[in-house]
């Protein structure tokens, strides 16, 4: 089920909220109801997907139970950890990367003149990357004694399946909601801030990301884009992916508030970053902190000298790229960011860079990030290379078709949302904080844009969130 769909907004959400608040004000029955609702929400895509989620849940719950058993020997704790992590990652690798690995194995075998293996056609379960990471965070945190074990299986299953953030994050660590799973209350103020944040996120997706995405689709899908169209297309994609994903995150956090949870803020004005390292402190924060705490620091972080630090950065960014999808373009995206981060670190606090006015540093960082989105959005490495060529003005010369392509990219229906999106980027206001205390102007603005967005949803074709594919 998609948040910006008729069935979610007008049936699933009111029913789930109504039953939730009719139930006794205790976390037991309410968690149980949230669990049922979340499985319905997830099973809506494909009922069979729920079996996989249940398996990941059971594996990590069992692992956590063994690890947290009083008096458990370190050896058995470690064995349970390794088993749970390996089997969860094994499922992720199988469902997400098996086909990719087979295709690349066949390329390798072909190079040596050997016959290839049959490539399996495996359906990628929506959101698997997110809920597997959440499950791992539980097992690892319990092992590190940074989080208590779940009170009941139902509580843990509720945490994994919690519908507001299960499909596309934010990646919620068990430790951050463990207390709320045991004890939480939602007053009118918190609920209202949730509704305001949800309404704003909804509008970001429907009124900005979707129409802007049309310009990006036209440019990236073009056989022969010119330089102007190529630059406009990548700017459009940068805006689309930000407003799409941050809109989803706002809705997730807003829904969480409606049920008494407070999830991590996932974006912090990333396009106002003045360096790539700063960008990663602001973009998809729940993923970058996850990779930092569960991969970069265990690898040694920056504690073992510059070479090892650069290697760690490269590993983290390459795996972070691969996490987004089984395609070399995502690996290239990760490598691109890794190289930039290493270069930044190697340069240290270079005086020349720091001497630039902050707006220039922000602009330069934005242009570098635009380059990364080309890798991210292109379907193949060859497409990405062709797109960079077009951006450099070395593509196919303009012909009569260029006008038709320009008409698709530079439509007022795309440009006006892009302009609004640009203004919002410049503005210092962010939905997450803006919605925390609801006042009359905020309530009225949020409600008005929500009504417009609902009307727009009724007139738009189905448009799933970009991050669902990851």
């Amino acid at each position, binding site marked *: 089920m998609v948040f910006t769909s008729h069935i979610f907004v007008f049936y699933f959400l009111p029913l789930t909220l109504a039953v939730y608040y009719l139930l006794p004000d205790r976390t037991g029955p309410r968690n149980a109801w949230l669990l049922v609702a979340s499985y319905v929400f997830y099973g809506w895509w494909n009922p069979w997907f729920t079996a996989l989620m249940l398996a990941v849940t059971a594996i990590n719950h069992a692992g956590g139970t063994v690890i947290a058993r009083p008096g458990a020997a370190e050896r058995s704790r470690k064995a349970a950890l390794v088993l749970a992590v390996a089997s969860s990652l094994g499922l992720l690798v199988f469902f997400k990367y098996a086909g990719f690995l087979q295709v690349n194995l066949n390329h390798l075998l072909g190079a040596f003149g050997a016959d290839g293996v049959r490539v399996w056609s495996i359906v990628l379960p929506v959101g698997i990357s997110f809920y597997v990471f959440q499950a791992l965070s539980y097992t690892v945190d319990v092992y590190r004694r940074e989080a208590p074990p779940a009170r009941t299986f139902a509580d843990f299953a509720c945490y994994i399946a919690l519908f507001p953030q299960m499909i596309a994050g934010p990646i919620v660590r068990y430790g951050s909601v463990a207390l709320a799973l045991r004890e939480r209350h939602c007053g009118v103020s918190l609920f209202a801030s949730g509704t305001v944040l949800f309404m704003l996120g909804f509008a970001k997706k429907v009124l900005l990301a979707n129409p802007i995405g049309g310009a990006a689709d036209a440019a990236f899908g073009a056989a022969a884009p010119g330089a102007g169209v190529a630059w406009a297309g990548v700017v459009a994609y940068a805006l689309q992916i930000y407003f799409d994903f941050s809109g989803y995150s706002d809705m997730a956090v807003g829904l969480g508030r409606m049920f008494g949870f407070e999830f991590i803020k996932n974006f912090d004005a990333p396009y106002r970053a003045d360096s790539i390292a700063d960008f990663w402190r602001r973009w998809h924060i729940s993923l970058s902190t996850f990779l930092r705490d569960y991969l970069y620091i265990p690898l040694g972080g920056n504690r073992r000298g510059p070479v090892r630090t650069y290697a760690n950065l490269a590993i983290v960014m390459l795996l972070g790229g691969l996490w987004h999808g089984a395609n070399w373009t995502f690996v290239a995206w990760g490598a691109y960011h890794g190289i930039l981060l290493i270069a930044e670190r190697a340069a240290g606090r270079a005086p020349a860079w720091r001497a630039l006015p902050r707006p220039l540093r922000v602009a330069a960082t934005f242009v570098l990030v635009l380059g990364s989105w080309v890798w991210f959005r292109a379907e193949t490495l060859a497409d990405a290379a062709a797109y960079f060529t077009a951006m450099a003005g070395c593509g196919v010369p303009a012909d009569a078709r260029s006008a038709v392509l*320009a008409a698709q990219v530079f439509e007022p229906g795309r440009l006006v949302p892009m302009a609004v999106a640009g203004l919002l980027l410049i503005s210092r206001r962010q939905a997450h904080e803006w919605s925390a205390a609801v006042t009359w102007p905020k309530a009225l603005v949020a*409600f008005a844009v929500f009504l417009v967005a609902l009307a727009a949803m*009724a007139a738009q074709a189905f448009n799933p969130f970009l991050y669902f594919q990851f």
Partner: protein
Amino acid sequence: MSTHPASRFAVAAFAAVIAGVPVVDGTVDLARRVRPPVADLFTQPPTQANLRATEHAMEEGSAVARAVRPWMLAARFLGLRDGGDKVLRGRGGWLFYRPGAEYLTARPPAGGSMVNDALAAVRGFRDELDARGIRLMVVPVPNKESVYPDRTFRGGRPPAGALAPETAAFLSGCRRAGIPVVDLFAEFRIARAAGAPDLYLATDSHWTPAGLRIAVGEVARHLRAPAGPSAYAVLPAPVRRTGDLVRMLQSPAIEAAVGAEVVACERVVRAESGAPYADDPASDVLVIGDSFLRIYETDEPGGAGFIAHLARALGRPVASLVNDGGGATLVRQDLVRRPRLLEGKRVVVWAFVERDLRLAAEGWPVLALPDLPRRIE
């Protein structure tokens, strides 16, 4: 701590909207004595297909959504010049079919182009007709976007026809295979350069009477139409036509704002009696194709389309078979179902819009024609 009244308002307003819509929808359904689509969730197994179908039915059946949708579409179209998934707004009030624009500019889909399938289907059809002593003539009809790319965008410079790579590959493939093909792309480009009146309607995806006359002239030339006076005459028959691109937007407010075009059609009649043109199924010429043959022919004013004008140019009635939007395959399937239409034919003229080379509804399968007794020469 007291709650800000704005918080209460936000909660109440949000709840009223998300709960109010299903209540209104359910009430409307019950008043119309139809079962609300949501009830399907309780009456069928929760398979992926059933869930998608129920969700779709809930969206489409929502009385609130149906009431709001046309107004939102109108607001987008009139306020933001946004024609949604189907329509691209050009300059000077011209509208274009977005899939036609994408056909011209976008890479073929990941599955690859259908041009080779199309060429195989055309060769197969040619061979089937050859075996019956019938000649095939192929007429790919240019998309409006290919003829008027300059009118899609302010920066465009007239006159500038554009040939999509798939269309170019198809035309050259036909020529290599020895299949007679009428190149309307070149003809339209020449006509525009010579200052011809508009060849396509401003708010419709189809050609004007001027455009179809050029097409008829080219086809007739290929068929070696006899010179001299025709058995047919033409009468002026102007019509007011709401463009198909306007109707695609599915909003009465847009239709009212854009209005209808006045089209200077010419109706074909028998010269001696003034009787309207009528097909003759026994004619030696069969014309098959899509809506480019239907416009002005069975649409208003009637008898003023490609078919009637071709008959006038040939000096004799033709037989025809038209399938809107199905020029690639559906019309050939129709022909397989009605094989008697091939009796006594010397030529089949097959017209289909060029975007079918990528977007044909049923692809481009090779179809076998049923057996018929060979025509006696």
